[in-house]
């Protein structure tokens, strides 16, 4: 089930509509994180003499408001962001249980940027 961004608005803002399998949802509290790992080089005494940073994946999270009794996106679903700083394809790796309050239901998702 593909997820595509609809519109030219920037992601990273508080709310944004996203289209999942031809159905529009609201994604809120979108956030992204550019991960990296640091590799240290130590001398024979164990003191650091150099370091390098290796860029990791771009990861993100969001909360999705569902319409009525719709089911949430599934783990493994991918989506595309067509504009903004974080353009690219993303894969959903975590989907929380649906939480409801009053008439509304939401799930939170974590995702990462697809490498190729």
């Amino acid at each position: 089930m593909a997820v595509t961004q609809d519109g030219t608005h920037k992601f990273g803002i508080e709310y944004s509509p996203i289209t999942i399998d031809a159905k529009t949802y609201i994604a809120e509290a979108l956030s992204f994180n550019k991960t990296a790992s640091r590799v240290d080089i130590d001398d024979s005494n164990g003191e650091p003499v150099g370091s390098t940073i290796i860029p990791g994946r771009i990861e993100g999270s969001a909360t999705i408001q569902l319409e009525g009794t719709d089911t949430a996106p599934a783990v493994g679903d991918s989506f595309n962001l067509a504009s903004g700083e974080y353009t690219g394809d993303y894969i959903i790796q975590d989907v929380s249980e649906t939480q409801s309050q009053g008439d509304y239901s939401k799930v939170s998702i974590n995702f990462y940027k697809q490498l190729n």
Partner: protein
Amino acid sequence: MVSTSALWSEYEEKLKEAHARDRLGEAESFLPSRWTLAGHDVGALSIRKYLILEHIKSPFIDGGEGSLDDLKNLLWILSESFCEDPEKAKAYKDKLTFKRLSIEEFSLEAYDYVKWNFRIIGKEPKTDEKVESGLHWIVTAIDMIASQYGWAYKDIMEMPIRVAMVLSNAMLRRLAMQSGQKPIMFSPEADEVKAEFMRRANGNG
């Protein structure tokens, strides 16, 4: 058919305004509130008073229509002078006068009042809702507030339901963040706007 982008540009501002109303509503929950039902002043609905109304099966808390006795019971329970003394209750109810009384109109007024008290969590009180543990939601709310703040349950029982709900939402947010999770937040006005947007975007409304 309007494109999703065009629809979103229409709703983006509505969403900001709805959020501002939600924030204001949350903050105002802590202020004293005054309502007039059938011409009589009533205060905020406390947890204790809500439970009493539920216990006596007051038809008004679920949007039903009640009798004149039901009406007098409601006004007595919501009055500032409410106590457990049956004589005082009788004296209060005997003195009640009504300039204009249509039980249908009053039932609507009363249900608006109940809904306003539950507004923080959505449009309807949904009094029959149980949490997954099977506990009455009020038990869960009292347990949460007592365990987090250390307040005596008698004090919690006197809290306006609106305050209890605002604090519960803030508490859930804090606990989620402390455990490294991203909290799922609900905002009644904003969520309603989002639901309307989705209905229109998906051609369902």
